[in-house]
């Protein structure tokens, strides 16, 4: 599916954007706020929600040429993106078991995509 590979990559982009938003929410959740309402109303959380909203738009664009059966499989790349982002930004460790799992997810996605 060389023609559809572009839309598959758009789907991957939407998963990446969604992953970035999740990491932003995670960072926001670990901060202290003077009032409970500021846990929701702060620039980080609001931009995270906007990014997540944006990712759903990108998903719909991708689905124009990506099979529904492929969507949730590609979405599993979120685990990979979040692990990488968490490793880089939150300094979270990746153990061997997780590394193998992440590699399996990538392999599985490549198998269905090619």
């Amino acid at each position, binding site marked *: 599916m060389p023609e559809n590979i572009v839309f598959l990559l758009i789907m991957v982009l939407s998963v990446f954007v969604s992953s970035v938003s*999740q990491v932003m*929410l995670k960072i926001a*959740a670990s901060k202290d706020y003077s009032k409970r309402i500021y846990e929701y109303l702060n620039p980080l959380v609001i931009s995270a929600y906007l990014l997540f909203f944006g990712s759903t738009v990108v998903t*719909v664009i991708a*689905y124009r040429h990506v099979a529904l*059966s492929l969507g949730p499989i590609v979405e599993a790349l979120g*685990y990979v993106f979040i692990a990488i982002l968490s490793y880089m930004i939150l300094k979270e460790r990746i153990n061997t078991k997780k590394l193998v*799992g992440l590699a*399996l997810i990538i392999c*599985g996605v490549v198998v269905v995509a090619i």
Partner: protein
Amino acid sequence: MPPGIDDSTNPNRPRPTSAKPDGSRPSARSFVFLHLIILLYSLAAVCAKLAATSELFSPAFFAWYAGVLVLLGIYALVWQQVIKRMPLTTAFANKGVTVIWGMFWGALLFAEHIDLKMIIGAAVVFAGIVLVVYADA
């Protein structure tokens, strides 16, 4: 973590080893709820696909897209409740079945062809998800 969006795809968020203080196993009812909202989540993807196959900016397009947002919203709210009642690892491992729902809805509603390559790929991804979520357990 605010409701509305959960960090459900984040396998790294802090999690209790058991959601219940007494360490007992989650109830069958919790599992039914979990799988109902996983089903709901898979229907959000169905709505996204229906929006994508509708004429851009037509009433049908907006209706299906609204469906995506509503289903994701409900999903996020109920998910927060479900993970109070069971370990996050269990919830995330079970969430891997969306891969199966995607193929089911694709075949049923959009006449998509599910070949052996896809089933193998999905199985490998599913195994990967289970390994990832239990790596921190």
